[in-house]
């Protein structure tokens, strides 16, 4: 297993040698150097913000699970950023944005391995009235890529084998994510259909969510989660950590959605900021009231999920929804996410952090909402996109998981799961010295 990874790594390095140092400044013909610089800097700031979402995921996921698996979750999240960026450089970027190198309809194309900045103006990405460099394009997109795999990480927490998860993630992020993305953002067949997914309710969140769904079904619930058919609470161990994670994710979303304008256009970016924030706020309030009513007490973890639900849902249409529509999308996402947590729980699909409810369900809802609230987009196209991407991701995830399941296996041995993945996979504890009392 280690050897295999090591080889992949070596190949990466060799192929990437094609990457070259930038060849001096050049500007796109049509826009001023100043505008080019602004657009580019904004995209880089947005990249930085998207990066911090990985810390958001790491802290949210570890906060909502148990101390005995914390090192493992943190480890996975750190690895995923790295794997995501490297595989995206190696192959993902070429699969997703290849200009017009379609090999199979508008479904699959490939622009080549590694990174090579085209010389001169050709290297500049003109988009949405702005422009930015090839490198900006890569790093912004690369930061997005890894988030899809991170979503899976939360859903499979506390029971998946480390190496199996890493192998899955590497393939999922290297192949499934970019191919699905190429259908829309890479100007493939869904783009032709006028399918609208502004910043990735479908292409990022649902892609992650479908992978998570397959994983959860293949893995089964954590030991002790369902006892005699009854769902038992397995508390997250650190609510401040979960809150840090959620608010860092919102923080990163300013770049995730704001950067998806792909230029610094003042009206567009600022409008996206407003819809994004109001949807998040609406998600919080709605989830809070729903949880308060249904659970008698307002559950912080639900409110955190509600915040993310609003963000995920508004992501597909942050640029085209009206203010009131954005708020309604946020409110409904906040309600839906709580009900979805209950639903998955009653189906005994054990998802420790609510990733399915947040990313899959609200990703779908947000994508469909664009068709419902915006006249210029057809509900049918949106539905087609949701279903097509779903089908592809489920098939892809199964195709990656099954070989792993039948070779090295997916799930930790029961004894190790009880003792915790931190000791069994990493030989270390997350909170050394702290007295932890647990009978789970």
């Amino acid at each position, binding site marked *: 297993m280690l050897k295999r990874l090591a080889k992949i790594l070596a190949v990466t390095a060799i192929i990437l040698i094609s990457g070259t140092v930038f060849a001096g400044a050049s500007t796109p013909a049509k826009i001023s150097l100043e505008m080019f610089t602004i657009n580019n800097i904004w995209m880089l700031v947005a990249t930085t913000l998207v990066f911090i979402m990985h810390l958001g995921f790491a802290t949210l996921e570890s906060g909502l699970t148990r101390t005995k698996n914390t090192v493992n979750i943190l480890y996975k999240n750190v690895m995923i950023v790295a794997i995501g960026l490297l595989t995206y450089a190696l192959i993902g970027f070429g699969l997703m944005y290849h200009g017009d190198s379609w090999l199979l309809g508008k479904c699959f194309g490939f622009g080549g391995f590694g990174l090579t900045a085209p010389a001169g103006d050709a290297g500049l990405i003109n988009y949405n009235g702005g422009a930015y460099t090839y490198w900006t394009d890569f790093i912004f997109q690369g930061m997005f890529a890894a988030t899809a795999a991170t979503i899976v990480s939360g859903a499979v927490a506390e029971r998946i084998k480390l190496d199996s998860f890493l192998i899955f993630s590497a393939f999922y992020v290297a192949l499934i994510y970019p191919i699905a993305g190429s259908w829309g953002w890479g100007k493939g067949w869904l783009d032709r259909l006028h399918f609208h997914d502004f910043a990735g309710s479908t292409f990022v969140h649902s892609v992650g969510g479908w992978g998570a769904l397959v994983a959860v079904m293949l893995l089964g619930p954590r030991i002790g989660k369902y006892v005699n058919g009854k769902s038992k609470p397995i508390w997250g161990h650190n609510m401040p950590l979960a809150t840090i994670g959620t608010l860092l994710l919102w923080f990163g979303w300013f770049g995730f959605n704001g950067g998806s304008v792909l230029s610094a256009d003042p009206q567009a970016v600022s409008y996206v900021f407003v819809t994004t924030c109001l949807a998040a706020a609406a998600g919080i309030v709605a989830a809070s009231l729903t949880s308060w009513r249904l659970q008698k007490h307002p559950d912080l973890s639900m409110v955190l999920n509600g915040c993310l639900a609003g963000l995920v849902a508004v992501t597909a249409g942050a640029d085209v929804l009206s203010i009131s529509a954005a708020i309604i999308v946020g409110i409904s996402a906040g309600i839906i996410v709580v009900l979805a947590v209950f639903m998955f729980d009653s189906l005994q699909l054990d998802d420790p952090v609510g990733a399915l409810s947040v990313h899959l369900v609200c990703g779908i809802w947000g994508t469909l909402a664009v068709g419902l609230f915006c006249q210029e987009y057809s509900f049918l196209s949106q539905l087609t996109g949701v279903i097509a991407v779903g089908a592809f991701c489920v098939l892809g995830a199964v195709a990656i998981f099954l070989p792993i399941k039948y070779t090295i296996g997916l799930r930790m041995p029961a004894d190790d799961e009880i*003792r915790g993945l931190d000791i069994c996979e990493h030989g270390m504890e997350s909170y050394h010295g702290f007295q932890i009392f647990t009978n789970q």
Partner: protein
Amino acid sequence: MKMIIAYIKPEKLNAVKQELYKREIFKISVTNALGCGQQKGYHESYRGADEEVNLLKKIRIEIAVNTDFVQPTIDAIIAGAQTGKIGDGKIFIVNLEECIRIRTGETGSKAIG
């Protein structure tokens, strides 16, 4: 009256409580402990330095009972905690001379339950 002290595996606490309830023993006190027994420990490693950890997480239960409840209590603990594998734990019995309920000042067998 006897004081029964038991060390069990943490994940067996709920089962033990269940078994005690069945036998109408409702009052127990629990602390977390580290135990070093026959059970093999595990290896922790950190930044290149290793250590064999043989203090394993256990739960310590203390139950004060009237003498006629001693056997049911032992039975309940064994029923709940036994897996047959090394590390299942121990039960210790100590004589209890007096027991006082703070709320009422009652003493002896009346106070214990």
